[in-house]
C-alpha cells in the first residue's frame, strides 16, 4: 500500500514532469549530435522505427531506447496529472480554464500514440514509372499512370509537374485523380506522391507510395492541442485585461 502511495505521489507530481522533461531533452540533444555523424540514421526515413531499432546496434540506438522509456514515464505522468486535476477542480468555477490545459495534454498524448503507431506500422517505397505504366500496390489495388505532365520553363528548368492516374481493382476502374507536389492521392490506406518527373517523348515520374498509421492520430492530437492552447491563451489574456 505504501509503495502504491509513493508511486502515485511520484506520478502525480509536477516535479516529476520537470525532471523527466530535463532528462528527455539531454537524451535528444545527444541524439541530435549523434545523428548527423552516422549514415545508418538515413534508413529511418524508409523503415519503421521499431524495425530499425531491432536491426541497429546499441552504440547508435541507446539514446532512442532511453528516450522511449522516459517518454513512456512522461505519458503516464501527464495522464495521472490531468486526471487528478480534472477530479480536483470538477466543481470549481472557470471550467474552461481547467479543461484547456487538459485538452493540450490529451493532444500531446494523441501525438505520442501517433508516433507509437507510426513506429510499428509505416511503409515507404519509391518507384520510377513511365507514362501508361501499371503499378500494383501493396493493398491489392493497381494504379495506372494515364499521363505525366511537366511544365518546363524557357531556360529548361522544370517549374511544376503532375500525373493523372486511375485505380483498378479486379480489373474494374474504381477511382482516379491527379497527383502533384503537395497534392497526393490516397487509396485504401496508401498515399501516392509524385516526387519529380523526367520529361521527354515518354515522360517518367518518380513516385512514392507510403502508409503512415499514426497520421490520423497526429492530426487529432494537433487539433486538440491547438484548441486547448487557443482557449487557454484567450482566457489568460482576458484575465490579464480584467486585472488591468
Amino acid at each position, binding site marked *: 500500500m505504501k509503495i502504491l502511495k509513493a508511486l502515485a505521489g511520484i506520478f502525480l507530481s*509536477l*516535479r516529476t*514532469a*520537470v525532471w523527466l*522533461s*530535463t532528462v*528527455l*531533452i539531454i537524451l*535528444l*540533444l545527444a*541524439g*541530435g549530435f549523434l*545523428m*548527423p555523424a552516422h549514415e545508418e*540514421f538515413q534508413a*529511418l*526515413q524508409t523503415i519503421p*522505427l521499431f524495425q530499425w531499432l531491432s536491426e541497429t546496434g546499441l552504440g547508435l540506438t541507446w539514446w532512442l531506447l532511453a528516450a522511449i522509456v522516459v517518454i513512456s514515464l512522461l505519458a503516464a505522468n501527464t495522464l495521472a496529472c490531468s486526471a487528478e486535476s480534472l477530479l480536483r477542480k470538477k466543481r470549481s468555477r472557470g471550467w474552461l480554464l481547467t479543461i484547456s490545459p487538459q485538452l493540450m495534454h490529451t493532444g500531446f498524448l494523441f501525438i505520442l500514440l*501517433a*508516433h507509437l503507431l*507510426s513506429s510499428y506500422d*509505416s511503409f*515507404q517505397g519509391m518507384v520510377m514509372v513511365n507514362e501508361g505504366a501499371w503499378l500494383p500496390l501493396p493493398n491489392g489495388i493497381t494504379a495506372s499512370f494515364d499521363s505525366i505532365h511537366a511544365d518546363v520553363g524557357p531556360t529548361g528548368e522544370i*517549374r*511544376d*509537374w503532375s500525373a493523372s492516374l486511375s485505380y483498378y481493382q479486379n480489373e474494374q476502374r474504381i477511382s482516379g485523380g491527379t497527383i*502533384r*507536389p*503537395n*497534392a*497526393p492521392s490516397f487509396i485504401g490506406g496508401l*498515399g501516392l*506522391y509524385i516526387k519529380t518527373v523526367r520529361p521527354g517523348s515518354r515522360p517518367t515520374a518518380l513516385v*512514392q507510395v*507510403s502508409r*503512415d498509421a*499514426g*497520421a490520423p492520430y*497526429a*492530426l487529432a492530437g*494537433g487539433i486538440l*492541442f*491547438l484548441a486547448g*492552447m*487557443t482557449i487557454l*491563451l484567450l482566457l*489568460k489574456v482576458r484575465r*490579464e485585461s480584467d486585472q488591468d
Partner: protein
Amino acid sequence: MIFFITLLLVCLYLAGGYRMPFAYAGLIGQAAAMGSRGIQLGRLPIVGPHDTLFFMSLSTALFGVAVTYRMEDRRNILSPILILASSFALFSLLYPPHDTPLPPVLRTFWFEAHVALSFFSYALFGIAAVLGVLYLMKADRKTEVLQYKAILVGYCFFSAAMIFGGIWAYYAWGTYWLWTPKELFTVILWLFYSLWLHARLRPWWYGRPMAILSVAGFGIVMFTYLGVSLFMKSSHSF
C-alpha cells in the same frame, strides 16, 4: 540597395531607443521593404537565411513595440529589444537574398504558415531572453511577468508552427515526422519551453532560474534555426 535600406533601418531602430517615433518609422520602413520584396518575388520573402533573418528582425521589432505598449519604463525595455532586432537585420546582410522561384513543394499555405509562425515564436523567445537579462540585472516583477507572457505566446505560435509543419510534411513527403537533426532540435526546443512553462509553476524555479533558462532557451533557438540549418544535413538545410 538592400545594404543601404538595412543600414537605415538599423539607425532608425537604434534611435528608437531614445525617441519612439524613430522606432515606428523603422518598423513601417522594414514592413514596406519586406512588402515590396514580396511583391517583386510574388510570394512571402521567407526563404533562405537572408530573408528569414530580415523577417525575424521585423518580428522582433513588431512584438517588442507591442509587448511594451503602455509600459511606464518602456524605453529601458524596448531599447535592448530594438538592438536585438537591429542585430538580426545586420546579420541578414551576411547572406545573399534567395531570388530564384520556389520549388513546387514550397508553394503551399502550410509552408508559409509554418515558417511565419516559427519566426514569430523565435522573435518572442528572443524578447523573453532580453527580458531575462534585464531581470538578472534588476529583479523586477513586471519584467518577470512580461517574460512569462512573451514565452507563453511564443510557445503557442511555435506549437502551431510544428503542427502546420507536420500537416505540410504529410502532404509533401507522406509522413508528418522526418528523422533529421532539424526535426529533433525542433522537438528539443518545444520540450524546453514546455519545461519552462511547467517549471514556473513551482516556487523553487521562480525568478532568477527562469530568467537564466529563458536566456539558455534562446541559445537553443539560434542553434536550431541557424546552427542546424547551416551545419547539419536536414530537410531544412539552407
